[in-house]
């Protein structure tokens, strides 16, 4: 509480001090915001999807009259390629702060490793950065210029799993007791599994009956799935992070007669719900597969989803589109509140903002805690239904009813 008061105090002082300059400042015609993502290399595909969200966001903000507090100034997107290594990300961030000095905020950088490197730079340059990356570490460093819109990795599984249990219980009439994990050894999977195994399974009374790890790429899923079939768990957590691995897993499950939800299958990453999966796996095989993700196209995004389809021919809107689109609106809101095109003022606005319920992120508010985490950030549960992954949880924003196959 004391913290909040101090924060508000500082905020209002800052505004008071800034007031004269608002009057003096000439209204700019253009305000620059950055998108720093891996446009080249291994992660170019998700980054290009983020770019779609940003471009639509910019157009929509400008079409709605720009930043009114700045006399209708238009937003302009500055694209920065952060490449596919930590070093390139660091270099790109340094270039961004050294050469794009009139940026007022940025969003990025897809992979949490890159976001870590980028924000080490932007923190020192005092440029506010929004991010859809999950890693807890991002907002555990005591930084003041990073704003994490997604629920952190640990909180995602903590939020997602109990909901899944409820879902299973209501749908099938009995509570799951046993669980199998098959996962790759990438950072996200390892972090998620750690939270599951060390804490959540115990709390929820789940027994781990299969625990298999592979190093991508997966050569053959047969031994994994054989173990799963032998153990017959009530739930299967399948955590691939490469489309090819995902394909092997679901196809092998189908071959063994475990597919289409015979064993309810849950992933914890966006990979299994990417449009690319459909290029190699038939929709029937994917039917019923679920994943817990930080954001997805949900109720109220219909116009945006249609726009993504029209402009970029994307069949549905993933987290990357929705969150980045939302980030642009969030920057616009911060600019309105700051009243001047200044990065420090925007950062301060983000820290003090209380923007009510979030429209483009699941759950919670447009408000950040002292760590820079969005207050009440929730998760979405997505399920493949008839060839499209649709949001089935939370109920308020779900676009379809979840189904839980009965054995």
């Amino acid at each position: 509480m004391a913290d909040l008061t101090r924060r508000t105090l500082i905020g209002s002082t800052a505004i008071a001090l800034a007031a004269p300059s608002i009057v003096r400042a000439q209204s700019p015609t253009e305000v620059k915001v950055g998108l720093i993502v891996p446009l080249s290399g291994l992660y170019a595909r998700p980054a290009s999807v983020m770019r779609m969200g940003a471009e639509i966001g910019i157009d929509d903000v400008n079409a709605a009259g720009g930043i009114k507090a700045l006399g209708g100034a238009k937003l302009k997107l500055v694209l920065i390629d952060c490449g596919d290594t930590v070093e390139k990300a660091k270099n790109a961030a340094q270039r961004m702060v050294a050469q794009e000095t009139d940026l007022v905020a940025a969003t990025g950088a897809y992979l949490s490793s890159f976001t870590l490197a980028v924000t080490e730079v932007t923190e020192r340059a005092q440029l506010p950065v929004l991010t859809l990356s999950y890693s807890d570490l991002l907002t555990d460093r005591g930084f003041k210029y990073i704003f994490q819109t997604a629920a952190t990795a640990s909180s995602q599984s903590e939020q997602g799993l109990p909901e899944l249990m409820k879902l299973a219980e209501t749908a099938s009439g009995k509570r799951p007791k046993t669980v199998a994990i098959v996962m790759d050894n990438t950072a996200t999977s390892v972090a998620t599994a750690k939270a599951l195994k060390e804490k959540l399974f115990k709390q929820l009374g789940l027994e781990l009956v299969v625990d298999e790890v592979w190093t991508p790429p997966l050569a053959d899923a047969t031994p994994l799935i054989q173990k799963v079939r032998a153990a017959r768990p009530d739930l299967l957590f399948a955590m691939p992070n490469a489309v090819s691995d995902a394909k092997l897993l679901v196809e092998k499950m189908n071959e063994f007669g475990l597919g289409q939800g015979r064993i309810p299958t849950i992933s914890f990453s966006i990979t299994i719900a990417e449009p690319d999966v459909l290029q190699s796996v038939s929709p029937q095989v994917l039917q019923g597969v679920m994943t817990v993700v930080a954001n997805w196209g949900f109720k109220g995004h219909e116009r945006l989803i249609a726009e993504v389809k029209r402009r970029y021919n994307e069949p549905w809107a993933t987290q990357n589109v929705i969150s980045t689109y939302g980030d642009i609106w969030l920057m616009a809101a911060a600019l309105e509140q700051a009243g001047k095109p200044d990065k420090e003022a925007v950062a301060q606005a983000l820290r003090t903002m209380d923007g009510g319920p979030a429209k483009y992120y699941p759950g919670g508010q447009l408000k950040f805690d002292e760590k820079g985490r969005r207050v009440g950030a929730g998760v979405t549960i997505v399920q493949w239904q008839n060839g499209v992954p649709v949001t089935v949880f939370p109920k308020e924003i779900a676009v379809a009813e979840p189904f839980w196959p009965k054995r």
Partner: protein
Amino acid sequence: MNAVRSLGPLALFALAYAAVAMVITNSYYQLMLTLVLVWAVFGLSWNVLSGYTGLISFGHAAFFGIGAYTTVLGQVYFNLSPWITIPIAVALGALAGLIVGFPTFRLRGHYFALAMLAYPLALLYVFEWLGYQELTLPMRRDAPFTYMQFEDPRINTLIALVMLVATVIATRFIERSRFGMALLAIKQNEAAAEAAGIDTLRWKLRAITVSAAIAAMAGGFYTVVLLVVTPPSVFGMLVSAQALTVAMFGGVGTVWGPVLGSVILIPISEILHAELGARIPGIQGVVFGLAIIAVILLAPEGIYWRVRDLLRKRSLAKSGAGMPSPLRGGPSLSEAEIRGGDGASGTAGVPSGPTPSPSPQGGGELRRGDDVILSVQGVSKSFGGLKAVQNVSFDVLRGEILGIIGPNGAGKTTLFNLLNGFLRPDAGRVLLDGTEMVGRKPHELCRAGVGRTFQVMRPFLRMSVADNVVVGAYVHAETDEEARRRADEAIATVGLTDVADRLGGELTTKQLRLMELARALAGRPRLLLLDETLAGLGHSEVGDVLAVIRKLARSGITIVIIEHTMGAMVQLVDRFVVLDHGMVLVEGVPKTVTKDRRVIEAYLGKKWSAHVDA
């Protein structure tokens, strides 16, 4: 003096670099200036091992990553400053180098390179398994100096510059000492190096230890610059490749190669990325790759050597005066070369010894004493079903010249390889002054006083004659100066003083033979094994070489010489051992041996022996 002069360019470079760093205020350019140096240091570390020994390492990321993780884990878990953890990283890197080197140096060539590839990949998974997927150096605004987190990025560049200067000086020191000579010798011809008394395994282990220590230092500082460490960013393939790329692009086996490579490549890659990355994503990689391919095609040995060759050619054409190489300490042109025009005429270096004259032969005056220096007893060696050497026994008497002759394929060279430790006999004993020598390595035999030359000449082509010979001198020399002196003496003995500064690759066959002789001689052997030293020489040249061999014998060195032609040998040797099909056929003085029926039969066939009998 030479060493001091060679530091001139380094001092100039460092001062210029520091000056540029001081005036640049753009933090992005400053970061580039820092990273260029980090990668240059890493390239130099690779060069210490792979550049000088020629054993290509695809796995230097292992050491780089160990340095990086030491730094980040030290601060995260123990709150240790990089000022402390980087020296720890250096120690751990050195240890890792030793641990990696010991088993891996059993492999050669491609196998070594591939085995090295495995270490960083294994470590990558180990660190992922340990849960260190993403680590950051905690921000310490309270103590920027203590934790190397300076507000002013110029300080980072200066620290990196100090590291580079230290690494360059260390490398120069290695290059000029017997350490570097040993490594260069290993690179150009490991067998010859071993035969010249160099303990190749020990020097290679030292090289990888130093190399790994420097790589770990670079990795440790890289963490300070990047602040974020992930296994792929420090153990990844691309990291190992970076060392190879900057070194090979700039020039392998020279201290300036990796520096040049880094100064050119790192900014270009970054500029391409900055200019093209957001517009045509991915094109920067294509352009960068094409640029590297073009340069490698135009300058296969790297930019440094290409430029140096061009400069050398031009200065030769312009002034005709030799340009002392300031960088490599290697060949500078001698007057002889300038006089001699193309250098292949071979006018220089005719030994001024006595003109060949038929020496008293066949039971005449013998130089030998009565004691046995080398006793070969029942030595056998088979390769699969081929019995190359069967139950061979003979004694070499102190001071004599013993000729081992026999037709091609008689097992002569195999016998030599058994005598100087390249091969281990299946059976039998080799006693040097009564001491069992079977199982000793070539360099140990060399130390014990057995020198050798090779049938197929094994000169170090990129080294000067003087450097070639000095490699052989280290075996008994206490200091580098002493080795140089001994080498000069040996060169004088064989009469190559005039061409001492030329590269091995520029010599005539006779000069190469004499140079090999000098190299063996520089180790002060008591027993010299000469393998077909006369092969490929013209008639008059044979005389010159024979004169040198006689001179050596007179100086008290026992000589065993292999030849398959009889002619020249009859004039030279005191005694013959004739081999055929891996067995001793006849042993005796030339007069009797040349008349022996079995010898004539072995050389010319039964028809001729019948002819002699008749």
